[in-house]
């Protein structure tokens, strides 16, 4: 059986002398592991740089068995490794995705968003805010989505300024005013409530830091307890971006 997909390279586990078991995030396959012959050979090593977008061909008799993969690079993200902040962010994101996503449950939208984030990182544009949005989308894909469209108390869609650290639902500034529990709410940066549009000004470092604090709170609650390495890599990535975790 042969399956074709567009996929992003996540992690590589050496197997045998030259081969490796590689985890990909495929549009149609979702998270999938496959054996790649000669993955660590001089000729193939660069093709399997984390983040690379590849055209993937998986071969295997049964879906339950580890398939073998051949691939062709469509977009190289090898350059990201040479800049401290993108390198640290990429190392964190691939570890998180490879560890947290379930296998065999495709989420094409999430894979496309990850690809778009990597494009933005490679292009040298403003990407920390896009990374916050991606973490929000990933939480949603894992079943811990944040409800940031409407105030949980008043039902209003404007003036949203906080998020409940328990429910992940937005709270408006008016509803929180004077409440004894208001100090426990997490600040909600405006850019997380709005759909991203062309020509929109890039959120400043303060807004990005608030965004990372928000997604970090829910990742720490739902995802990181079983993946402490991903949490450490996130801390490192934020430090490289000049933000604190």
């Amino acid at each position, binding site marked *: 059986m042969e399956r074709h997909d567009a996929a992003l390279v996540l992690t590589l586990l050496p197997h045998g002398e030259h081969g490796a078991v590689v985890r990909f995030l495929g549009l149609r396959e979702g998270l999938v592991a496959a054996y790649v012959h000669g993955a660590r050979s001089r000729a193939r090593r660069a093709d399997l740089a984390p983040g690379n977008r590849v055209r993937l061909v998986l071969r295997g008799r049964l879906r339950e068995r580890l398939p073998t993969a051949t691939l062709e690079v469509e*977009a190289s993200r090898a350059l990201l490794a*040479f800049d401290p902040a993108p390198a640290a962010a990429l*190392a964190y994101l691939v570890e998180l995705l490879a560890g947290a996503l379930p296998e065999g449950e495709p989420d094409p939208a999430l894979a496309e968003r990850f690809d778009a984030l990597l494009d933005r990182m490679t292009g040298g544009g403003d990407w920390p805010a896009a990374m916050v949005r991606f973490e929000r989308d990933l939480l949603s894909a894992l079943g811990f989505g944040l409800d940031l469209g409407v105030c949980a108390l008043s039902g209003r869609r404007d003036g949203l300024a906080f998020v409940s650290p328990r429910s992940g639902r937005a709270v408006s500034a008016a509803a929180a005013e004077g409440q004894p529990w208001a100090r426990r709410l997490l600040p909600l940066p405006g850019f997380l409530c709005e759909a991203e549009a062309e020509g929109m000004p890039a959120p400043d470092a303060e807004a990005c830091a608030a965004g990372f604090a928000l997604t970090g709170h829910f990742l720490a609650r739902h995802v990181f307890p079983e993946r402490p390495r991903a949490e450490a890599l996130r801390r490192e990535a934020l*430090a490289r971006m000049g933000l604190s975790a």
Partner: protein
Amino acid sequence: MGAEPAKPAADALEVAQALLARLPGLGPRSARRALLHLLKHRERLLAPLVEALARVDAALARCPVCGNLDVTTPCRICTDPKRDPALLCVVADVADLWALERARLFPGRFHVLGGLLSALDGVGPEDLAIAPLLARLDGVSEVVLALAATLEGQTTAHHVAARLQGYPVRVSQLAHGVPVGGELDHLDEGTLAQALRLRRPL
């Protein structure tokens, strides 16, 4: 537990072959060929090899200064008076140190980190010899990071560079780009992009 009875010669041959097959680059077939070659040239190859390996096994030690493997402690590189003590080259593994030594291009001394940061293998900064590196910077003016051009290698390089901030040393790293003898149409996009980014005036 009592001592094991001596194994018959045929068993010993199988054990030798199985052990050779575990070496990198060898499988069962090539191990058999290597063993046969050694047996055919017993005086010229087998006996000296056994003797040399026994000597190495008896004397082998990890250098407490740089982490190199050698039969003297500290290693011969660390004690070589011709080496420039102001230059320090940081490598991930002893294999990298030996590769650089083979070329005999680096006049300074080395420091072996003992691996690369790797989430997959659970290797964190505390597992690498970074603290010993910081402890031996006295008299060093330049630290050359000779780490792999992979995400893990570069993440490690960025981490070490960040830890070296605040020390009065120049931090540099190996160039990345077109290899000597490399033809452009055979290079991957990443290498080409990096080579173009780091182009220099001619």
